Structures are given as C-alpha cells and as structure tokens.
C-alpha cells in the first residue's frame, strides 16, 4: 500500500520545504509546480473528493506572481512563496464560493478574505482550491458533507476523518503540499492521524478566526496540515498573529516557530495520561503508541504516567458547549441575507423554517436542537452552566499536570480510519471518535498529531499536547520523533487509490 519518496519521486510528494528548495534553485518554477498539482488533482479527485472547488486560473495567476517574486521582483519571498496549498471551505475567499460543506450556503461568494487567506496570499502561497468538510465542520468522518464524502487515500473504502477530511486527504494524496484546517474538537488532528499526515491545532487565540464560518466560537481554531512538522511550523509563522478583527486573537510569544525546532527532547518531561488509553483503544493503535513512547524515551525524554480523572467527562462537556454555541452562531442562516432561500413560502417565518429545514443536513439539525435544548429555560443550569463549570475543572487539571511535565502524549484517535457508513446510524458512536482530541479544545491547549506508524495498512497518529502558548515545545517534540522515524516518507500509492 505504501511507497517511500526518494530523490526522483513525484515532486508533489515532497514536503513543502523541499519543494521550496527546488523553486529557489530554479529546478522548477511555481507555475510548473502548480500545473503538477492541478494535474494530480484532476487525476485523483474522482476517487478522493477532497476539493469542493478547484481554482486553476486563479492559482496559475498567483503562481506567475510568485515566480516574479522568486526571481527577485517584488516583496522578499518566504517559506510558502510559490507553494500550492488548499484552504478548508469554511474559510472565506473573496470571489470564490465558500459553502462550509452546506446546501444552505450553496452559491455564496464572500466579498472578503478571511485573515488567514489574506496572510497566505501575501506570503505568496498558491491557493489551488477549497477543501471538502463535514457540514459546518460538524463531524468526524466527512460523511456529513452535503456534497460528497471524502475518501481516505490509504484505503478509499474508509473515511479520512473529519471535519478537515478534505485537507488531510489532499495533503496525503499529494494534491497540495499544505492545507489550512479548523479544529473545534479535533477536526485537524484526527483526520491528520487517519490520513498519515501532520496536523496542528495552535493555542486558542494564536490564529485569527476572522472570516472563518463560525461553529463554536470558544473552541474553534485554525491551523495547518502538512506532510511534515517543519511545514506546519513554517505555515504557523505565516498565520499566527493578533488581528484587531478577531478580538479573541492574541500576539503569541514566538516570532519563528522553526527556531530551535531541532533542539531535541533530551531532558524533557513527557507524561502519558492513562485515561487516554482506557476502553475503546484498538490494539494496533495501542501498540503503535507504545512504540512511539519508547522512541521518545530513547531520544532522552523522561516519561511518566499520570492520571487526569476528568478526561471521561470531556466528551459530555464538549457536546453541550459546542452545540449550544452552534445553535446561536447558525441562527444567521435565515434565507434572507445569503445562500439558499425557499421561494414558495407565504411569509417570512415560513421562509426561515423551510430554508433551514431544507438547507441544513441531519447532523447540523441535531446539534442546533441539542444546543437550543441545553440553553433553554429549566435546563440551562443542569446542562450548559454545569458543562462550563466542569470546563473550569478540566482546565485546572491540565494546569496542574503542566506543573509536572512539559507535554502530554496520547494517541490522536482511539481507532484507525473506519469504513464509510459504519458509524452513521449512531451519532454517539461517531462522537466517541473525538475522545482523545476534545479535551485540548475545552482547555484551549495547542496539540499536534504526527504519524506514528501503521495498524495493518492504515496510519496511526501520535498526539502531543502542551500548555497554552507551548506551541513551539510541542512542535519540537513532534519534530524529534518524526526525524527519528521514517513514517513521513510513506505515502499512499497513487495507482492504488481507487
């Protein structure tokens, strides 16, 4: 199933920083690289469905500009200049359709760019298209996309994870080098793990969400997916900055997340919270994880087992808070301002009822109803307020853990990629897919998933969590592990993608 990339391999399977070196040495131009990406997209998309929109003309225009810049005309080039990237389709792109994977936004063309898109453009990155996702980023398998489910490039009978499944699958399949995803409960890290790529959720507030279609505002965070850790660090350098248009954004402590990334883990204190290895962990995932822990220990870190007793309550906290916030955020889809609208209604109330009833898919409806119920009179204290109080305790539990250790290591997902359709009948079993990733969103922590081997033919992810603004330290840990293993060189074989 897997091939190793070597010197003469398809350039689209290189990490972005190596492709960038080819651009710098004039072995290839950005226009040529972009054409390679577009050819590969055309060839693989019928099997993968990672993109909702491909923008070849815009991409080639940007690539021409990037080539000028790489030739010394224009602003100084940076690490992403000339590199084909994808943006998840819940981030606004001026003049390019943005659907959030929902029928209710079909035909919507934003008049402005999200801040992260603006930053990618000014870095000279080439946006080749918009990534498929679970509707409004609600899901763990991409089967909630209103348009088509994304397929996992390692095995197209299986899901890529979600909700940034398009982003993870496109990076894994070599349709682009880097993708921006969003992570509300694991939506970057879990698909990264299931598709064998690196995915990072930065600390809450480090990256502006202006122009991100809101799902759960106290949890949503934008971050990079890439073929290796260095690519994610370079991307974070471009997108991490305070933005006056997102009042929750903050200026982070680092200017350059690649600096010191190769300093190693010698003397670092890493902790394994035993609750993350409790019931539901597949034997193949457990065994890959245990080997990864051994590897980190052999690299000189000190490993200790700890207990985070509230872990088991995180799922309930999340599935109260996220739907509650979603029920408020999604009230704006009324059939009047943008997107879908039903024409056969007699009055404005019917327009709203029908537009929302027909425009939202089942999972989105379920979460709106769940959130509105948790917020309603008589239930607010028992559900919403209680969840927010337990959120305080979960944050405290992490704070105490980080007094004793520098980072936590866990599996990213309790299972490898599952078969399409295997969890769609039971929402609760789908929600359990996020059990290892959700706590970081509740506490606002940074987390990264890095490939840690295989269970059978399917990739397994190692998750590294740090304290707020410990983004550089978790990247350093992930980098040390990645460089000591060869998982980053494994790719799904494109002629086997079917």
């Amino acid at each position: 199933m897997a091939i190793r990339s070597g010197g003469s391999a398809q350039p689209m399977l290189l990490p972005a920083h190596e492709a960038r070196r080819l651009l710098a040495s004039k072995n290839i131009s950005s226009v040529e690289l972009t054409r390679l990406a577009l050819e590969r997209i055309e060839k693989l998309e019928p099997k993968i469905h990672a993109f909702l929109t491909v923008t070849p003309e815009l991409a080639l225009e940007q690539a021409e500009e990037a080539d000028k810049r790489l030739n010394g005309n224009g602003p100084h080039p940076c690490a992403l200049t000339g590199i084909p990237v994808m943006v998840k389709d819940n981030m606004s792109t001026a003049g390019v359709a943005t659907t959030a994977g929902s029928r209710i936004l079909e035909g919507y063309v934003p008049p402005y760019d999200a801040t992260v898109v603006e930053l990618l453009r000014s870095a000279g990155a080439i946006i080749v298209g918009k990534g498929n996702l679970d509707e409004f980023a609600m899901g763990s398998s991409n089967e909630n996309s209103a348009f088509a489910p994304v397929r996992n490039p390692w095995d197209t009978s299986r899901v890529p994870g979600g909700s940034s499944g398009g982003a993870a699958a496109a990076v894994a399949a070599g349709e682009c080098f880097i993708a921006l995803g969003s992570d509300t409960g694991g939506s970057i890290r879990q698909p990264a793990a299931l598709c064998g790529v690196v995915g990072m959720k930065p600390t809450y507030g480090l990256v502006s969400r202006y122009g991100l279609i809101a799902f759960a505002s106290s949890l949503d965070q934008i971050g990079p997916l890439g073929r290796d850790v260095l690519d994610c660090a370079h991307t974070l350098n471009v997108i991490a900055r305070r933005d006056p248009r997102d009042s929750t954004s903050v200026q982070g402590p680092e200017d350059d997340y690649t600096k010191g990334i190769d300093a190693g883990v010698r003397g670092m204190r890493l902790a394994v919270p035993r609750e993350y290895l409790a019931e539901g962990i597949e034997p193949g995932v457990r065994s890959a994880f245990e080997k990864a822990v051994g590897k980190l220990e052999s690299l000189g870190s000190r490993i200790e087992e700890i207990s985070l007793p509230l872990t088991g309550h995180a799922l309930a906290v999340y599935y109260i808070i996220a739907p509650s916030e979603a029920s408020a955020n999604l009230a704006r889809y009324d059939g009047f301002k943008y997107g879908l609208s039903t024409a056969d209604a007699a009055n404005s109330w019917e327009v709203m009822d029908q537009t929302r009833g027909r425009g939202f898919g089942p999972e989105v409806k379920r979460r709106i109803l769940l959130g509105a119920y948790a917020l309603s009179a008589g239930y607010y204290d028992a559900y919403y307020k209680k969840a927010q109080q337990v959120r305080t305790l979960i944050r405290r539990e992490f704070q105490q853990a980080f007094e004793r250790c520098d980072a936590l290591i866990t599996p990213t997902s309790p299972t490898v990629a599952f078969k399409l359709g295997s969890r769609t009948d039971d929402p609760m079993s789908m929600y359990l897919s996020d059990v290892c990733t959700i706590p970081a969103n509740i506490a606002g922590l940074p987390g990264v998933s890095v490939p840690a081997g295989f269970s059978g033919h399917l990739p397994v992810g190692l998750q590294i969590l740090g304290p707020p603004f410990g983004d550089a330290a978790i990247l350093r840990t992930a980098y040390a592990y990645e460089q000591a293993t060869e998982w980053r060189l494994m790719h799904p074989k494109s002629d086997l993608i079917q």
Partner: protein
Amino acid sequence: MQPLSAEDVRHIALLTRLELSDSEVEEMRAQLTNILEHFQSLAEVHTTGVEPTGHSTNAHTVTRVDRPSDSLLREQVTSNAPNHDGEFLRVKPILE
C-alpha cells in the same frame, strides 16, 4: 432522566426555526434522548462554588479606538442576498 417527547422536539424546532417532518421529529427525539442520557454523568462532578469558563483565554473586554475606517460597499454586502432590490433586501411579509 425522562425521555424527550415529540412535543419537546417540536418546541425546540419552533424556537430554532427548523421545519422537521414527523419522521425527523421521531428520529431526533430518540437520538437526543440517547445523547442527553450520556450527559447525565456530569451530575457526578462536584461543582459547587466553581466559576463557569466561557473562553479559555484570560482576555476580558477588548476595546479599540472608535475611529471610522473603510468597510465593504453596500452592493458587495447585498449581492449575495437571494432577493435584493437596490440597497434593500426584499423579504416576505412579517406581520399579516
């Protein structure tokens, strides 16, 4: 916990302006009841006197200088409306 009734579901659907078919009401009723049952475990956590957390950052009210700046043009904003007429959005009657 009491299972949700069809009336409960219809009531929240009205509050959230979601048209649901009878079969959707029944499906949501069963699924939401099941999900809410899983949440009951939170009652075991002792939270007396614990402050709720809304946001995970410590940022409080954020202010800025009140200075006018460029904004989107009206046509840009209304161009996405399903039914617009010059500078207005056209809607069906609200009061009858």
